[in-house]
């Protein structure tokens, strides 16, 4: 199992092939891609910033929770940091298992927990010249409404 941060493109196919095992019948992967639209505004690019030490600690915790909770074989995940262009892979989660149902459940658990618990932040650069730290817009009187 692994949880990594990377500032370069995520080598999806290499990681996937590294998980290939002849004692696993099922593989489920989730990828988060940079989308050109959010909250009704056109997005040009994204920046991810991480509190790296804690992000990696929490990422490993999440994967260990999933490995305890679901009878799967292996779980690996990588999250990008830095500037990303449209269509780039921001996060990747791969799960191998003997049976597919558990692979789906574990993969969904891991990505949901990553999104809610791992200290990584997303800054959206909109076509209209504004920027937003996602999910921080309504945390205060004026922050995020710049």
């Amino acid at each position, binding site marked *: 199992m692994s949880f990594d941060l990377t500032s370069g493109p995520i080598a999806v196919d290499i990681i996937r092939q590294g998980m290939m095992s002849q004692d696993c019948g099922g593989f489920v992967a989730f990828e*988060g891609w940079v989308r050109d639209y959010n909250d009704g505004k056109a997005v040009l690019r994204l920046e*991810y*910033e*991480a*509190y790296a*030490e*804690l*992000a990696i*600690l*929490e990422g490993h915790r999440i994967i260990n929770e999933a490995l305890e909770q679901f009878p799967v074989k292996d779980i690996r995940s990588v*999250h990008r940091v830095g500037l990303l262009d449209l269509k780039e892979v*921001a*996060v990747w989660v791969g799960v191998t298992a003997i049976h597919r149902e558990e692979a789906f459940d574990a993969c969904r658990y891991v*990505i949901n927990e*990553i*999104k*809610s*618990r*791992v*200290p*990584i*932040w*997303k*800054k959206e650069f909109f076509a209209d010249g504004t920027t937003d*730290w*996602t*999910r*921080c817009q309504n*945390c*205060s*009187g*004026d*922050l*995020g409404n710049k």
Partner: protein
Amino acid sequence: MSPSEPIVRQVRLRYFAVLRERAGISSEERETISTTVEELYDEIKEEKGLDLEKKFIRIACNGDFVDFNYSLSDGDEVVFIPPVAGG
């Protein structure tokens, strides 16, 4: 040191994302009389003009999450964590 004299602790603060931009710095060493991380946030919030409500943040100390009532020790590294948005 008399009991009425507040204890001063040396702490290190790191700022990320919206708080980093708001504070205008990514880290600082500071002396504080705050005894918990919650008091420290109130202190910093005031000083830096951070207006992120407390209910939206989490706090980490020395590389792991802690409660708001975590007691500060000399040399602690504290991070206030705004709402995360990975993935």
